[in-house]
């Protein structure tokens, strides 16, 4: 009856199961890192959220491109772009929060101008702006056109931001002593936990986008269904003979 179907239920259950396994493994099964100690357990949350943040960015860009290519005839692509952006912004916030918590433990500071973290920060701000644009237009077609152009401009912007941040940080020769997941020696269990974390979060991402997109479809339909009602009401107003309102 609501937006759930058998496929989304199966997807949801799988996502929950794998997430449970990741949590158990992250807290209890995997060993502490010889250098960083237990703080490495945050990595199993930080890396998957970062992966989803970029996956969401790519999904929104591709969906916007398709929506533009189809001249917005079907609004499905635009809704997927919007849904993926909303979920993506949430995951980007998680990436930044877990990244700074982890940084606090390993580098002693909440924020490190690490090229990847900084690019994620710009990605986050860009998509907050994208979502602000989506809220302005009322008419779905105009909203689709305007937001898809902004999303494609972001595709241009983010590589430029990343490149200039990497170049900028290289000026300051002291490479970040411990980048978040570079030199942590991962044994196979840790690697498997990390990998299943990425899988779990990808399933969660897909589940959220599917539901959010259907929710957006319904609110658009509600406006269009409202439209038919309004058109018939509009016609009823028409009184021939210049009576008018």
């Amino acid at each position, binding site marked *: 009856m*609501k937006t759930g*179907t058998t496929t989304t239920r199966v997807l949801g259950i799988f996502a929950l199961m794998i997430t449970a396994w990741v949590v158990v493994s992250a807290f209890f099964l995997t060993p502490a890192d010889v250098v960083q100690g237990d703080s490495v357990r945050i990595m199993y949350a930080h890396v998957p959220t970062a992966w989803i943040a970029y996956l969401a960015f790519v999904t929104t860009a591709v969906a916007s491109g398709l929506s533009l290519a189809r001249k917005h005839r079907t609004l499905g692509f635009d809704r997927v772009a919007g849904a993926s952006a909303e979920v993506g912004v949430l995951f980007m916030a998680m990436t930044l929060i*877990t990244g700074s918590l982890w940084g606090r*433990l390993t580098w002693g500071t909440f924020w490190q101008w690490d090229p990847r973290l900084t690019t994620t920060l710009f990605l986050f701000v860009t998509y907050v702006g994208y979502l602000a644009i989506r809220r302005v237009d009322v008419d779905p077609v105009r909203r689709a056109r305007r937001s898809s152009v902004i999303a494609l401009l972001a595709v241009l912007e983010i590589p430029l931001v990343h490149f200039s941040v990497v170049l900028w940080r290289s000026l300051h020769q002291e490479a970040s002593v411990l980048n978040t997941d570079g030199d942590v020696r991962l044994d196979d269990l840790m690697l498997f936990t990390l990998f299943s974390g990425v899988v779990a979060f990808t399933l969660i991402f897909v589940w959220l986008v599917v539901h959010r997109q259907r*929710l957006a*479809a319904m609110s658009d339909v*509600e406006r269009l*269904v409202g439209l038919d009602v309004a058109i018939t009401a509009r016609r009823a107003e028409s009184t021939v003979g210049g009576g008018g309102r």
Partner: protein
Amino acid sequence: MKDLGFILASWIITLGSIGVLAIMTLRRARELSSRIPDEHKPWV
């Protein structure tokens, strides 16, 4: 376990926010879909 506070915090924030978003989406979906006839829902 050292730094348990930080580790717990990051996990709770991550999973908690996903849970909140999921529940909000499902609730709004349930309330909205009661008002929309089924033929307008391609997935039904």
